[in-house]
């Protein structure tokens, strides 16, 4: 009896050991390609990077020169998206966390947000084309593209901000209101400042996604090639991700160097955004008093 049990235990432990090894190998096999991709892009893209590459206009049908207008375009689009989506997203999150009653309407709002998060990016492109470009007559422009990207970014900003607001202990609010502050004063002076790291994380993640998107701007604001920088929100613009798409599929005889260089610039942008998020998180964790 005793020996049977003992061998059973030994068997289970052997299974455990084997299982853990298999899982370790599979998981590492899942993340190794990510590291490989980063090294590969840096290795092949670095030789293309020069001051001229990031600061000059493209020349000879984009087969030479730099990618400056694409960088500027992505910068404009990101700022434009932030202008609309950040205030609206934070306000919506404040409503959901601090004001919204538990009723059917609030439930519909949540359903709507889940829905917005699931809509494919190319469908946002169609919507932007229908509403902003054609119906409101903004044309293919930075304005149309930014508005389209804003609505796509909203769900990310709303859900992360709401989570950050809810994490602030209820007692903070109770004390503030009992001292005579109004509801808004409590939110503005007490709850929001405590939630800032969480909100920033959401904003950065949302904007990172918006800046990397191509499909929503294809027919709302992206230009194949522009000989000059856009000078009003109603101009179309080049953008980094779209530029990469163009030079890797639409331009025959494109030097591979320029393609890898463009990918590297995009990768560096993503890495910087990710590092910012990680830093905000770890600093917030260290400083938190509750």
């Amino acid at each position, binding site marked *: 009896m005793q020996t049977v049990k003992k061998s059973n235990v030994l068997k289970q432990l052997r299974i455990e050991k084997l299982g853990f090894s298999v899982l370790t190998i599979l998981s590492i096999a899942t993340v190794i390609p990510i590291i490989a991709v980063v090294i590969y892009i840096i290795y092949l893209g670095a030789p293309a990077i020069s001051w001229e590459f990031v600061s000059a206009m493209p020349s000879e049908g984009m087969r030479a020169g730099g990618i400056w207008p694409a960088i500027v375009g992505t910068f404009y689009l990101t700022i434009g998206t932030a202008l609309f989506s950040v205030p609206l997203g934070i306000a919506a999150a404040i409503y959901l966390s601090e004001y919204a009653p538990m009723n059917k309407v609030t439930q519909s709002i949540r359903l709507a947000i889940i829905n917005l998060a699931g809509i494919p990016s190319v469908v946002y492109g169609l919507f932007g084309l229908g509403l902003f470009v054609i119906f409101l007559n903004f044309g293919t422009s930075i304005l149309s593209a930014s508005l389209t990207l804003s609505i796509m970014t909203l769900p990310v900003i709303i859900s992360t901000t709401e989570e950050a607001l809810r994490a602030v202990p209820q007692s903070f609010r109770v004390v503030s209101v009992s001292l005579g502050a109004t509801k808004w004063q409590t939110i503005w002076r007490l709850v929001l400042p405590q939630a800032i790291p969480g909100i920033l994380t959401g904003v950065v993640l949302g904007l990172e996604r918006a800046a990397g998107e191509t499909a929503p701007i294809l027919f709302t604001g992206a230009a194949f090639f522009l000989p000059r920088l856009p000078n009003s929100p109603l101009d179309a613009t080049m953008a980094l991700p779209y530029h990469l*798409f163009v030079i890797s599929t639409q331009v025959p005889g494109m030097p591979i160097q320029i393609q890898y260089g463009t990918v590297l610039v995009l990768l560096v942008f993503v890495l910087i955004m990710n590092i910012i998020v990680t830093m905000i998180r770890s600093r917030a964790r260290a400083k938190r008093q509750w």
Partner: protein
Amino acid sequence: MKENQTRIFEKIITRTIQFSGYSSILFVLLILFFLLSEGTPALFDVPLSQLFSERWYPIEDYYGILPLILGSLVVTLGASLVAVPFGILTAVFIAEIAPKWLQEIMKPLVELLAGLPSVVLGFLGILVVSPFLRDTLNLPTGLTALTGSLLLGGIAIPTIVSISEDALNNVPESYRHGSLALGLTRWQTIWGVTVPAAKSGILMAVMLGVGRTIGETMTVMMVTGNAPVVPTTLQALFMPIRTMTATIASEMGEVATGSSHYHVLFFIGIVLFLFTLLVNVIASNISSRKLKRSERILS
């Protein structure tokens, strides 16, 4: 006097915030409205039997969207076969097995993958994955459904990993302690206790991952070859294919506003919207069922 001002200010702020809260509903309705108003004319322009036929050739007014729908489904299915096992197992590893230092390396890497723009994956697909598949499998072209599936798997993995991991972390520590105290090994605890307890969260992760895959555009457009053929056999996996998303993205730029082609592309948008809506409804049903069950346990 000052008190009065504060009260009015408070009222304005409250209204503004309330309106912002409602805005999400407004946007969903607007999106629905514009899709329907631009897409439903397709039903009058093109006879229904032709719309769901097998030939997509807009230049000669053939608007059969069947190959596009099936193309999307094939690529999504292929991507799920890659992303679901790898995603769930990686989540289990990170949440239950990996030592702290390895967690700290793996989590940011998965987040980095989530942040990579889809054009970058498409670019790598063209230059690395597709030549590799062409040479090793001896195919006429590397731009196939399989190439798209593999890369889309990479897009779904971060979603599946992070949501499953959250679900596993939400399983109370006492469950694991109870199981270990009864003499089960950690391995038995994971598959017999922890994973079943997190089942609904993991299912939701899978649904949301799949949802992202159906809607993904740039990567599939760049690497699947874009041939609108109806996949009939397993062989189709190794041939070019075309999805709904890629069709909209590549053709919308060239059509005249208000033409039949334009309306049909919007109609495809409606179909896509319905697909993702279905996936989301299933996912949110799973999560609300979870809530009810946990309420039952707590009461």
